């Protein structure tokens, strides 16, 4: 997490398939605006796509908040995914490479974590899930 001053953030709902595409497009726009490299943009957008789908499929829907980060001379993009779904009981297991909850959507969270600079998972059974990711300009 970062204590950077809050720039304008955009909140998008995640209720349907088409919302995942919308989140990808918004993340791409913000990543382009802070001038992340093309590879870093692609990694961030891909990570956002994975997490947006998780929010929709496992969390039963929720929202994504996208904002620009500034910390000293560094700039980056933060995306927060939150849902009020069942939560994750064993976060260590959920972050293990190759783990999926069974229906085999996605590569679990571990693959997604490798694509970003900051990754924070906040969840508990019955308390929903919030995943915060960030990518900084090099």
């Amino acid at each position: 997490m970062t204590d950077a001053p809050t720039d304008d953030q955009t909140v998008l709902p995640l209720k349907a398939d088409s919302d995942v595409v919308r989140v990808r497009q918004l993340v791409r726009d913000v990543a382009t605006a802070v001038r992340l490299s093309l590879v870093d943009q692609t990694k961030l957008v891909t990570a956002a796509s994975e997490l947006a789908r998780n929010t929709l499929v496992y969390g039963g829907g929720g929202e994504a908040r996208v904002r620009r980060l500034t910390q000293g001379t560094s700039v980056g993009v933060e995306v927060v995914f939150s849902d009020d779904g069942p939560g994750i009981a064993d976060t260590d297991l959920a972050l293990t490479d190759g783990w999926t909850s069974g229906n085999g959507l996605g590569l679990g969270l571990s693959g997604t974590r490798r694509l970003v600079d900051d990754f924070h998972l906040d969840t508990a059974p019955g308390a929903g899930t919030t995943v915060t990711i960030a990518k900084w300009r090099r």
Partner: protein
Amino acid sequence: MERIPILRIGEMLLVSIQVDLQDHTALMLQDDLSNRIVETGAKGVLIDISALEIVDSFIGRMISTTAAVSRVLDAETVVVGMQPAVAITLVELGLTLSGVRTALDVDRGLRMLRDSVEFPVVERGVTPDDGRAD
């Protein structure tokens, strides 16, 4: 509802994905392709993803499944045009698209497919002349 067009050229089916793929559009394409292979008896499928800005695990799985299904239906699939940034991201994410043939561009992909259609893999060491009584 969005649908990806499938073009038939001789014994090949050609698909060029030009939109940001929603999950259900990807699944529909997978179904449509399988049906078209059976309807047309196509021997090759070429999927152009040069316009795709990302391939996440869902789209990656769609590509792998499509290649596997077409193989079972006696057709070869070649995926062409993946952007370098997409390739780097895919591998880092942990997806290697194993079992999927790839080519850099449509030209090379078509050549690859033609070769495999015109010169299908024969059993090693067996030529048409073998076994002929002399």
